[in-house]
């Protein structure tokens, strides 16, 4: 599937704030089997210098996957989500996500290419607090498989 390369560089409006809950971090940590007390016990997290429980490294995907609907559901771009496969994923942290964070995402399309009948779309999501403190930058590359 070919995607329109003129979308490269497009930045979308900031998403509504996502409030990171202590129980959500515990639920996510439990689901991936992460038993470190800092994910579950605020006192253990504070002992490491964090204000509340610390999210595991891939937790931000909950926030960015929801935010990326801005892009994959952009009718002008025309991604067929039923043909989407996850290609690459990267997280670059300023600090870990902690309970109590109110996170805002700004999505930018970094790369649009087509190869072998497939479309490739790389997005960068800058995740920051409502106060403007950068927390983590998240890159995601998806492959939109061709009809072949």
């Amino acid at each position, binding site marked *: 599937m070919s995607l329109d390369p003129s979308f490269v560089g497009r930045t979308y409006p900031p998403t509504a704030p996502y409030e990171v809950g202590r129980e*959500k971090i515990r*639920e*996510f940590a*439990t*689901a*991936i*089997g*992460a038993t*470190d007390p*800092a*994910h579950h016990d605020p006192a253990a997290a504070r002992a*490491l210098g*964090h204000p509340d429980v*610390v999210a*595991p*490294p*891939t937790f931000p*995907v*909950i926030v960015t*996957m*929801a935010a990326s609907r801005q892009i994959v559901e952009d009718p002008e771009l025309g991604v067929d989500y*039923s043909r989407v*496969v*996850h*290609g*690459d*994923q*990267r*997280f*670059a*942290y300023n600090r*870990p996500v902690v309970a109590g964070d109110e996170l805002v995402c700004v999505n930018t399309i970094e790369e649009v290419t087509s190869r072998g009948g497939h479309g490739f779309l790389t997005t960068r999501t800058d995740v920051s607090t409502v106060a403007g403190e950068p927390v983590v930058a998240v*890159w995601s590359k998806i492959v939109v498989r061709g009809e072949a």
Partner: protein
Amino acid sequence: MELPTQTFRVTRADLVRYAGASGDFNPIHWSDRTATKVGLPGVIAHGMFTMALVGRAVTTWAGAPDAVVDFNVRFTRPVVVPDTDEGTEVEVSAVVKGATDEGLTRLDITATCLGEKVLSQARATVRTPR
């Protein structure tokens, strides 16, 4: 330097739990009917679940739950999870590739399922133990 290999068992129940916790309810992660219809051998793990397991391995190696500074993977092969009590296993190993200018440690990671690599270009940069 090679780090000790870590093995993670993955069952259908894990995928259901991850779907609920992450909000990713794509039926290829819980319905054989849907998975086979799109050409997969059966239900597969969420790529992000596999990455989360690798994240556990990385934080265990680093010795701190908040040690990860940079973390990236490429998903190259699906982790097929049969509907059995045993499910399947993902094995994660890594080598230390050296230090960055900021004194952080770089790891090159390998993740396999049934002897086949499921990730490529899997790397993490971590803070060394405090």
